[in-house]
């Protein structure tokens, strides 16, 4: 973990409520896709946890969905704004466990950490299948970016306005050879993905309201088969075997 100032370089609106932010700063603490940053915002006491969508030596890519005041303020920062950021938080995905037929399964804003993950899996020589789910076509984003990575891309929307009609789980069922999932999205989606019988294993990224984000306050702990774990420090990625719903 590192506490340092990042500078907002640019913000781009992707959908009615979702934005892409590029920040520049010291990313040396970031070690794995699936980690997150915790961002201080003026006038807010608690920091806001946001997944690292992707990163380079000097920059961070974030995708942010506006749900309340904090995210509202964040996406409206003007280029040049300095942000106090704790970077490199959480365990991140473990690529080495993904096997030969991994699938990345993301729903809504949960697709964010899967982007950097996909890129690194491709670089590591094991390109994943990527299944993305949205409520409707107008909510979809980052399809071109994922496609440009060169992954097999499966899109599902609840209303069928884009890709197949249905849920991410329907996409996954259509590729029964995929037996290991790396997933991030809303809780009902994670739960449905977790229950798919074709999966031998998987890694699931969880959310929790956080006091600190670096393991000190026990604000975020959840029960697992291996005892209580801190979503912020022992997670946000939990493993299929250990998850209790």
């Amino acid at each position, binding site marked *: *973990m590192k*506490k340092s100032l990042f500078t907002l370089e640019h913000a781009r609106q992707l959908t009615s409520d979702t934005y892409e932010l590029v920040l520049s700063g010291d990313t040396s603490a970031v070690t794995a896709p699936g980690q997150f940053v915790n961002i*201080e915002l003026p*006038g*807010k*006491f*608690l*920091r806001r946890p946001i997944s690292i969508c992707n990163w380079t030596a000097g920059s961070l890519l974030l995708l942010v969905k506006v749900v309340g005041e904090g995210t509202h303020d964040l996406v409206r920062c003007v280029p040049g704004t300095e942000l106090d950021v*704790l970077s490199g938080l959480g365990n991140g995905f473990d690529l080495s466990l993904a096997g030969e037929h991994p699938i990345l399964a993301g729903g809504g804003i949960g697709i964010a950490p899967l982007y950097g993950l996909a890129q690194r899996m491709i670089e590591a020589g094991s390109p994943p299948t990527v299944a993305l789910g949205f409520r409707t076509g107008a909510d979809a984003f980052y399809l071109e970016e994922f496609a440009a990575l060169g992954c097999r891309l499966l899109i599902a929307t609840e209303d069928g306005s884009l890709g197949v009609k249905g849920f991410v789980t329907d996409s996954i069922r259509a590729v029964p050879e995929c037996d290991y999932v790396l997933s991030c999205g809303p809780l009902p989606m994670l739960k449905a993905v977790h229950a798919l019988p074709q999966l031998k294993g998987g890694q699931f990224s969880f959310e*929790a*309201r*956080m*006091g*600190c984000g*670096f*393991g*000190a*306050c*026990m*604000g*975020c*702990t*959840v*029960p697992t088969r291996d005892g*209580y774990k801190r979503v912020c*420090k022992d997670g946000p990625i939990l493993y299929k075997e250990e998850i209790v719903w």
Partner: protein
Amino acid sequence: MVNLSVNLAGVELKNPIIPASGTFGYGREYAELYDLDILGSFSWKGTTGEPRLGNPQPRIAEMTGGMLNAVGLQNPGIDAVVEQEVPNIAKIFHGPVIANVGGFSIDEYAENCAKLNDVEQVKILEVNISCPNVHCGGKNFGSDPRSAAEVTKAVKAVTKKPVFMKLTPNVTDIAEIARACAGAGADGLCLINTLLGMRIDLKTKRPLIANRTGGVSGPAVFPVALRMVWDVYEAVKLPIIGCGGVSSAEDAAEMMLAGASAVEVGAANLKDPYACKTIVENLPAVCERLGVTNISELTGGAHQ
């Protein structure tokens, strides 16, 4: 050169800054960030007799100027702390440790404290009496002078270490509770614990925190904490650890002027993991501005 050292019931701290219980775990996470030996002490996470899983999620809510928590005293239990955390603390912090102890009966408080008798590093016991008394309809020990005194007496009977009773602010008359603890032999007092608060989630129309209520802490409680430190300083002649909303060296000085001999910093650590380090570093300049060469001169300095 400013002398930052302070004395808490015979225990010398190199400076008055102490991370508050529950915001610093057992030191591990912060030891990765900075050398803990710059701290006066630290108060470890409230530890109970049995391991506790704490409350269901969510446990955290935000508010203007602070936060609410309902962690529910999640901790591995006193035995595990003595076996696993104490040896680790020996590696990361070499000053006096404050052991924050919880309990749900008077006997439990005494047993937990007794188990720390042989733990050399623990120089002060901080007895958190904001816990519900399971034998008394769940009323907090700290909200009644009699039960506060009983806990004090029971703990004092089993330990030679200085006992600081940590008071809850959710009372009509904090001075009365302080006097009861003093009368029962407390060596010092720590105040305040969190204010009882609540938020409702407009999306679900239900309490935001699963436990319904949570403890309010952070800058929002600072003036309430300061007032209580003042009142207790006037009421009893015991050293006070002032706690509640302290986020800067200036806040720490204000707390000491109100009557605190040392100062705990809680929620500020969660927002800024370097908060205590920064406060320690800024204290000498603040003392110089205030014209004191020994920081302990500040204690109670605002009283007449």
